[in-house]
């Protein structure tokens, strides 16, 4: 009997091997996902490999199948529901016909991009006592080779198998019980995974970390509050001599990468305590700034601070958008940055020098940005015990929702928010893991609104706007065919990039806290929108080649 079993097993093994060989002979090899693929961004239109589509954060696709003329025929193809609480704030990634997306409460999925059917599901067992001020969310995977990378709510960074969702390595970044958490999508650069931590509302000391993609070992760390040995430490003055140790500067959306300069660019979070700067006099570098770091070493090359001595909770955690422009007849390599403080900045991305700063919403805190790069402050803007009205409010002129940049048309599309707040301030003592805001903001009676705005990057002037019915948190996507996808009140909407005319909409049934992406599959362009806990894929109803 035992001999028979062994023989059968051997026969099965041989037969299986033959079948496998035969199958392999018929099948194309699985495509690999390389560092060069990440650098190529959206050159391959079947893919979406980084948070904003390419390292420059353009969120602008070269696809042209869906046009202003035919977008009215866009119809839902499938929906995927997470069966979780919470909401999507993630940018889905697409590679080789599979969507990889993270969800709330540290979940993630691989989904068939043709049908919306789940392939695998990832879920992290989270510890009790999580501290996360602003949503138990995640903003997406990073991807390279056969691995996906993500940050976690308990302030770890993990690698999981792209094929199975199984955990491959798991590295702690910081103690979650002290208010550290991870929500940013990673930025994968060469052989490193770049991430950071959220938690400025709990007095964390923010940082940007690089981890080895293979081992998960930390390669470098850049602290976003300048310590005693760092240049800029003198910008932390005042009665709290340890203010820099709990000074905020969190990192909760990904940065950009310029392979030619080998620099990564990252926007940093607000200073802490949020609304009381009395004990942290000075500019408080490098909070509310953009930092340019050497991608290999994490060394600071330059910085530009958007809001020196931030006391309004204006994180600069928006997308740095890299662009090559001709300004005043000169070719310039720039960073475009629509900041939460209400100004739209153009910076030289090799030096960090200000080229232009102009408001893109109504602001009452600064009259203008001076040629030396510092804001010219207006009076009566400091949060107080009695309350001080300042515009924008602490949710800002824009926020984490990613913008898009159409380099052909020279237009930057951003979800802009018009709102003012009454800023209160009081003394707060730092206690690890406790809230550390030093004040709060009160809603004002006037009704705030938001709008999709197109900014001409050559001049900084507004070209057009579309006003939403309510405050929108939606990101933006644009395409070469002249469309802009954005939305509000649960509506995914398509606009004419030249005029801002609304051409199409679909009520998804839940508020939008992310941006759409687009990809080709089987010759059809799809637009994929996360809303609530649902992904909806759209394509033209009756498209034929």
């Amino acid at each position, binding site marked *: 009997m035992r001999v028979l079993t062994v023989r059968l097993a051997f026969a099965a093994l041989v037969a299986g091997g033959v079948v496998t060989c035969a199958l392999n002979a018929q099948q194309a090899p699985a495509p690999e996902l390389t560092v060069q693929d990440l650098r190529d961004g959206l050159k391959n239109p079947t893919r979406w490999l980084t948070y904003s589509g390419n390292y420059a954060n353009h969120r602008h696709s070269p696809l042209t199948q869906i046009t202003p003329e035919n977008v009215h025929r866009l119809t839902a193809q499938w929906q995927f529901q997470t069966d979780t609480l*919470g909401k999507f704030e993630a940018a889905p990634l697409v590679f080789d016909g599979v969507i990889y997306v993270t969800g709330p409460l540290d979940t993630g999925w691989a989904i068939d991009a043709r049908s919306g059917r789940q392939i695998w599901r990832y879920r992290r067992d989270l510890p*009790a006592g999580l501290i996360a001020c602003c949503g138990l969310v995640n903003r997406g995977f990073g991807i390279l080779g056969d691995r996906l990378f993500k940050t976690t709510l308990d302030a770890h960074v993990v690698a999981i198998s792209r094929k199975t969702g199984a955990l491959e390595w798991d590295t702690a970044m910081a103690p979650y019980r002290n208010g550290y958490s991870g929500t940013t999508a990673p930025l994968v650069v060469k052989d490193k995974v770049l991430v950071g931590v959220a938690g400025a509302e709990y007095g964390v000391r923010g940082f940007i970390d690089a981890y080895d993609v293979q081992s998960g070992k930390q390669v470098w760390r850049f602290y976003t509050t300048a310590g005693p040995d760092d240049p800029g430490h003198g910008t932390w003055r005042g009665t709290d001599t340890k203010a820099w140790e709990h000074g905020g500067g969190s990192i909760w959306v990904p940065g950009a990468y310029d392979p030619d300069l080998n620099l990564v660019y990252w926007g940093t979070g607000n200073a802490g305590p949020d609304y009381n700067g009395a004990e942290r006099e000075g500019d408080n570098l490098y909070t509310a700034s953009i930092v340019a770091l050497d991608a290999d070493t994490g060394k600071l090359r330059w910085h530009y601070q958007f809001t020196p001595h931030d006391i309004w909770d204006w994180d600069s955690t928006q997308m740095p958008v890299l662009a090559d422009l001709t300004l005043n007849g000169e070719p310039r390599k720039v960073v475009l940055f629509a900041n939460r403080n209400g100004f739209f900045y153009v910076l030289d991305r090799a030096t960090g020098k200000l080229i232009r700063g102009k408001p893109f919403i109504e602001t009452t805190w600064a009259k203008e940005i001076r040629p030396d790069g510092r804001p010219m402050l207006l009076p009566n803007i400091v949060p107080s015990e009695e309350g001080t009205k300042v515009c924008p409010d602490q949710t800002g002129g824009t926020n984490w929702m990613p913008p898009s940049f159409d380099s052909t048309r020279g237009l930057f599309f951003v979800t802009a928010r018009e709102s003012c707040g009454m800023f209160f301030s009081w003394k707060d003592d730092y206690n690890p893991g406790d809230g550390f805001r030093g004040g*709060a903001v009160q809603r004002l009676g006037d009704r705030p609104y938001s709008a999709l705005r197109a900014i001409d990057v050559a001049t900084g002037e507004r070209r057009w706007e579309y006003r939403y019915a309510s405050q929108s948190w939606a990101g933006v996507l644009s395409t070469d065919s002249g469309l802009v996808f954005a939305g509000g009140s649960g*509506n995914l*909407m398509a606009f004419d990039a030249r005029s801002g005319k609304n051409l199409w909409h679909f*009520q998804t049934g839940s508020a939008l806290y992310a941006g759409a992406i687009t990809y080709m599959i089987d010759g059809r362009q799809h637009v994929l929108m996360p809303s609530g806990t649902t992904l909806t894929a759209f394509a033209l109803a009756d498209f034929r080649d």
Partner: protein
Amino acid sequence: MRRLTCTLLVAATVAIAHASPQDRPTRGEQRPTRNPLEGNAQAISNGGAMFRTRCAGCHGPDARGYVGPDLTGVWLAGNTDDHLFDVVRRGIPGTEMTPADPLRVNDRDIWQVLAYLRTLSAVTSAPPTGDAANGERVFRANCTRCHVVNGRGGQLGPDLSRIGSGRPRAGLLSKLRGTSGTIRPGYESVTLVTKEGERIRGVRKNEDEFSIQIMDTRERLQGFLKANLNELTMDKQSLMPAYGPERLNDRDLDDLLRYLSGLRGSEAARR
């Protein structure tokens, strides 16, 4: 079998060790269902300080809501001390309202914060005047068409069954006399004119860029596509008429206020 038992015991021990303290069985005395610190001046002061540090960031410095909801009307909405304690202790799954870790926040802290919040929503105890029985008659004659009290009345305006526990007399007075200026979301007055020329008044229940949902003055829930409307006007004035002295004399007003101030919901609802 013994090995299995040992394994289960070890697993259970590990599970308990990893369980959060709030998941562990409570020992000793039962937690009170009503706030033992309500009205305690020191507790209110401490609770106010804790509210600023731990709650105001989301709920606003005046607890009237910002990123998080308005907390000044939670008792008015029928919540009990016991339930609110649980919300703070356990959090609301899937939201930014995370559980209050017992290692950081003890029961007394929570009661103190609730004692403070209660002061923001409590009705000031001005000496009651007026005749409640006549006030009820005035109410039945003028208000029941639009307002429910204890299951009787119309639906166009807010349910007033617990209005006395959440709205001070001065607030009720300004609403009645038409000097309030604020309209609760979901009851903003709107006028529509359809393509067919029909003029419809009602209160706005929801709206987006392309549609609006209302309850019209006949209590009919209706949705409209904006593309099918000739006019859409958000009225500044509430649908509720202003009851000036010519419509409601001071004595009847006083009686009505006495009646409304006494509306605290049924016992079951309060529990």
